[in-house]
Structures are given as C-alpha cells and as structure tokens.
C-alpha cells in the first residue's frame, strides 16, 4: 500500500526523444510520477503512447533526453559504468515476448543464473541452491527441467523462467512490460497469481505496463494513463476506473469490454485515431479528439494537478467539474 513517506521511485519531467532534426519524435514527453514501496502502479494507454519507452528509460535501456529518476533517494540519470550497473540490479524488467527474451541455446538453470554469474555474487553449490530455489518458486521443477533448453518451453513457462531470472538479484522494483499479453487466458491467470505471491514474498514494488485494462485493474493499487507521451491521469485504481476525470480515460475505459453479457456495451466511442507523435497537437495533446475542447485547450498545455488526494489529472476541464455546471 502506498506509504506517505519517501517514494521508492521518483520520476520528474522525464523525456525520451528518438531521431534527430526534422524527424524528431518525443516518445515520452515530460512525465512525472512516484512509486511507493510495496505498491503496484499500473501504466496503461494505447499502442505507441510511450509505455515501453518509459520502462526502458527507467532501466536506462534507452537514454532519457532529460529529467530525473531517483531510486531510494539516489539520482540515477547521471550514473555511469559500474555504478549504473550496480543500480540496475535494484530494478529488473520483464518483457512481453517470453520466448525471444530468453536465449534458446542456454539451459534453463544458466538463464536464471545469468545475473548471478555476471555479478559473481554466489558460486558453486550456493549458486545451484539459489537457482533451484528460484525455479521452484516460479513453479518449474529444477530437477526435471533445469537442464533443458529454453526453446523446449511454452510461452507461459518461459515467462516463469524470466520471472525467476529477474528475481535472482533480489531487486526492489520490477518493471513488467506486457508480461501476460501473449499468454492464453488459462495460463495468464496462473502467471498473475504467481506474480502476486512473489510480490508479497520478496517485498517487491511493481510498475505494471499493459494495454489490457482488466488485467491492470486486477493487479494495481494505482493506475497512470498515458496518451501520446504524456500522463493524462493518475490515481487509485478504484477511483480512476469508477470516476475518471480525464475525457481520454473515460473513453478508454468505455471501450473496454467486460466479459459479462449483462454489462453495458460501448457507450460513446472515441472517433478518429491518435495523431502522429512526430507532430503532436499544440496545447492539450488530446484536443483533436476531445469533445470538450475549447480554444484554451489549443493554446495552453494542461498540467497534472491534484484534484483529490492522490488523484491527479491533466485537463483544463476535469469531468467532475463539468458535471457540476
């Protein structure tokens, strides 16, 4: 649960720009958020809005163009070389494609031990015991399967192996990027339950990136919504899902279909498609598709402001204020 003291991770004005000159693209265009120890922050938004880039920038897999990232009070963006690698063990990332993120020609035990071998933290029997323990924790029998090659495993099993590997260095923060998106429903449920168990056991804090709004709701304490490189709303998941304040959040949630024949079908459907991030609209980035847009929206960029405790929205006309009129 969020704890009112120092956040574990503090991100301020993070931007990531790809390309140069006229083909410049701000995939992440100045976002700020905190993640508190022990919580799960969900990050949702449609394809291309910058979710993965955000995760990769935190890991420094892509270089941020500006902004700051503080983990446990220590600023990471200026760290280099060994110092940076040291900090990387505090954060781990799990990717969408479970099969291609594992080396098919390595044995499962060696894959899980990759970070241990890289850091030479443990060796010999101790290493073996730790790897076996990790594999058992994710539900893979180390004796029967530890010596097999990754290519012999299904998507769900590969995702279990990725989880085991990510836990080897006992990270504080786990970044999960679409980690169940490629899995079948029956396997997805196993992995989501496993993740919740391990989170409790290892005291993990999670950034859970996904486009599936139901999955995100099930795992997150708080949720941030992105649109075209910006955060438009962030708040406790129940509040955000029940009474969204940003028009985009409302459309996004309205488009999610509940697996229940009695649930209402799509209400208002958002028309059009997101504009190109190469050439984002002035002012509010959502204004070209927003039914409530005014001139102010074209001229002034709305900033993320707190509208209720822990609930922030970047809109000149939050929905609850419109309703009151």
């Amino acid at each position, binding site marked *: 649960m969020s704890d009112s003291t120092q956040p574990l991770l503090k991100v301020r004005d993070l931007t990531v720009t790809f390309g140069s000159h006229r083909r410049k693209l701000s995939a992440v265009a100045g976002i700020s958020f905190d993640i508190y120890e022990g919580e*799960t922050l969900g990050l949702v938004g*449609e*394809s291309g809005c910058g979710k993965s880039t955000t995760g990769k920038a935190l890991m420094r897999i892509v270089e941020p163009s500006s902004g700051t990232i503080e983990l446990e009070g220590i600023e990471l963006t200026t760290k280099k070389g060994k110092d940076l690698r040291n900090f990387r063990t505090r954060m781990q990332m799990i990717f969408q494609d479970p099969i291609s993120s594992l080396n098919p020609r390595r044995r499962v035990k060696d894959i899980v031990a990759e970070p241990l071998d890289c850091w030479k933290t443990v060796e010999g029997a101790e290493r073996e015991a730790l790897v076996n323990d990790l594999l058992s924790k994710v539900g893979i029998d180390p004796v029967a399967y530890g010596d097999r090659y990754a290519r012999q495993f*299904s998507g*769900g099993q590969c995702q279990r192996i990725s989880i085991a590997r990510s836990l080897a260095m006992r990270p504080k923060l786990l970044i999960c990027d679409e980690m169940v998106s490629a899995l*079948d*429903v*029956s*396997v*997805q*449920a*196993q992995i*989501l*339950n496993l993740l*919740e168990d391990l989170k409790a056991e290892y005291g993990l804090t999670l950034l859970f990136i996904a*486009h*599936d*709004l*139901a*999955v995100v*709701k*099930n*795992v*997150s*304490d708080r949720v941030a919504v992105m649109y075209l490189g910006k955060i438009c709303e962030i708040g406790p*998941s*129940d509040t955000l*899902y029940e009474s969204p304040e940003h028009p985009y959040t409302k*459309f*996004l*949630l*309205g*488009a*999610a*279909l*509940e*697996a*229940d*024949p*009695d*649930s209402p*079908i*799509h209400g208002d*459907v*958002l*028309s059009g*498609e997101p504009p190109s991030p190469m050439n984002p609209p002035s002012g509010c980035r959502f204004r070209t598709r927003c039914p409530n847009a005014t001139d102010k929206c074209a001229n002034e960029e709305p900033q993320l402001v707190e509208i209720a405790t822990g609930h922030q929205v970047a809109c000149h006309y939050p929905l609850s204020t419109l309703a009151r009129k």
Partner: protein
Amino acid sequence: MSTERKLLVVKDLATTFHTPSGPLAAVGGVSFDLNQNETLGIVGESGSGKTVLSRTIMGLQPRNNVEVSGSVLLNGFEVVGASEKEKRSIWGLEVAMIFQDPMTSLNPVMRIGKQIDEILRVRLGMDRQAAKAKAIDLLDLVGISSPAERYNVFPGELSGGMRQRVVIATALAGSPKLLMADEPTTGLDVTIQAQILNLLEELKERMQMSVVLVTHDLGVVATRTSRIIVMYAGRIVEMGSTREVFARHRMPYTRALLEGSPKVSNPSHTRLLAIPGRPPNMLNLPKGCSFAPRCSFATDRCREERPELEAASEPGHTFACWNPLPVKERASA
C-alpha cells in the same frame, strides 16, 4: 425448435493434417448450425482449432496432407468435397472471410481501391467504371474518410484500424450472406476495436448478414454475440446462448475460461481462478476427455471415454462432460 431457415449446417466436421510427426486432428466431431442474421461467437485458447474450423467451413485448406470429413451445408451448397471451381462460385458471394492477420489479407504493393475493384470485376463481372464507383462506396461504407482519394493509397500507408476497415470492405464487396471474422480486432487498440465492432454490427444489420465471430477475447463474445461455441483441443465442449453459457456453464473448462479471466469490475489484487497446466499437444491427445489432465473433477471414466455433447436444461445449450458442474439457480427476476 426454431423453424427459421438455417444458413449454415455443420455436421460431424473433422479436419486432420498429416504432419511429419503423425496425424494432427485440428478439428473433430464439430456440429452446429447458424440462423440467418445471427452472430455466433467461437472462443477458445490458442491452438484450439478456431482458425482451422473457420477455414474448413470456407472450404479453404492446404492442397496436400489434409483430410476433411463430415458436412458443411452453406445455404444449400455442400462445401466438403466441392471442387475449387465450384467453391469459387460461393466465395465472396455466399461467404467471405476476414483473416486473422490483416497484413496478409491485403496485397502490400497494390492500391487499396484496386484490390476491391478486382473482386467486384472478377466475382460480380462489373466493368471498370462501375467497379471503381462501387469500391469508393464501399470505402465510404466502412468509414474511410475521403474515400475517392484514399482509393489510391497502399495498405502500408494506413494505420492498423484503417487497414482492417479496408479488409472488411473487400470481404463485403460481394454482399455475402455469411461473414467469417477470425479475430477481427486482435492487435487493435481498444478504442479502435470499439469502432470496428460497431461497424461490423451496423453492417450486419444493414446487409442482413450472419456473422461468425472468432476470438479469444471474452469481452467481445460476451457483448457482441447471441450464441457461443467454446472449443478445447479441436472440439466443441460447450455451446448455447451467450447469456446462458456465461451464467450457467456446466463444463469445467468453460468455467476456467470465463472465471479465470480478469474483469474490469474486480477490485485490485483479486485472486483469479487458475487451472494448472496448459492446452494439450494436439499430436498426442489424451484418450478420453482432452481436458482431463487439467481438470480437478476428472475421474477414471474421463480418462477412458470421451464425453459427447449432451443437452442442458435450456434448449440449445449443450456441454460435453461426465461430471458437470451443478446447475446454478436462476436468479428470480
């Protein structure tokens, strides 16, 4: 029983591939029918045979190493055993298909308008001018703005959602009576998915079509179909009105599928109903019920003998299980 004329009657359909590792029964013992103007959903996990079933209904199979048996009666036309030439007379006109991967169903080096033209000219025998005018109408119908200008663009210049609209336009060019839509919104963003599903529903009404909607997305079937088929390992394991199957499913796999999927209305940290294991290897199916290795209700009988579909209390609702879940109380309305 309904006296409505059936548009599609499928009986005991089986599709087996002869692979180097032995026979693979991708679809087996499938029987169902479809009314005019009905939307039927087919759900199941990856590899359960949804695409093979749809393609078999269309009469689209690889030339070699495949065996199809049973019957597919489409508006009076027997698809199984028909020659390529005979099938060409129904493709596009009686039945059309939207394929799972939108990129493969459009020719990347051909302008989108020309691709629709071609169908109109070849299938409907229209002349160049009429075909072009109709193609522009169709682009307009599927919600492509400035259709006359967009007529000349290549598929690669369009977003995924726009491409899917073009795919729908090509499928509808010959005003088919049945549209087989295989995962028509998979890979699209939810707001675009909503647009496409609304479009399909609107076109279905307008053109008086029947639609078979194949998907692994339970939200889509729950809200967009009137009847559903649940598949597991190439067979129908439960079938009935969507409402009935969601509310009163009897087969344990159906329950795992429906209750194991996260819901938007769930509170945070909801424990999901998870079943162990994963779908079986289709080359090596268990002898009795294919779900037995993962089923907590399995008995010896399940491992020996395959359960056939039997009737539940609501007409049209059937399930295949030796130890079905108890009948849920009907909520008193």
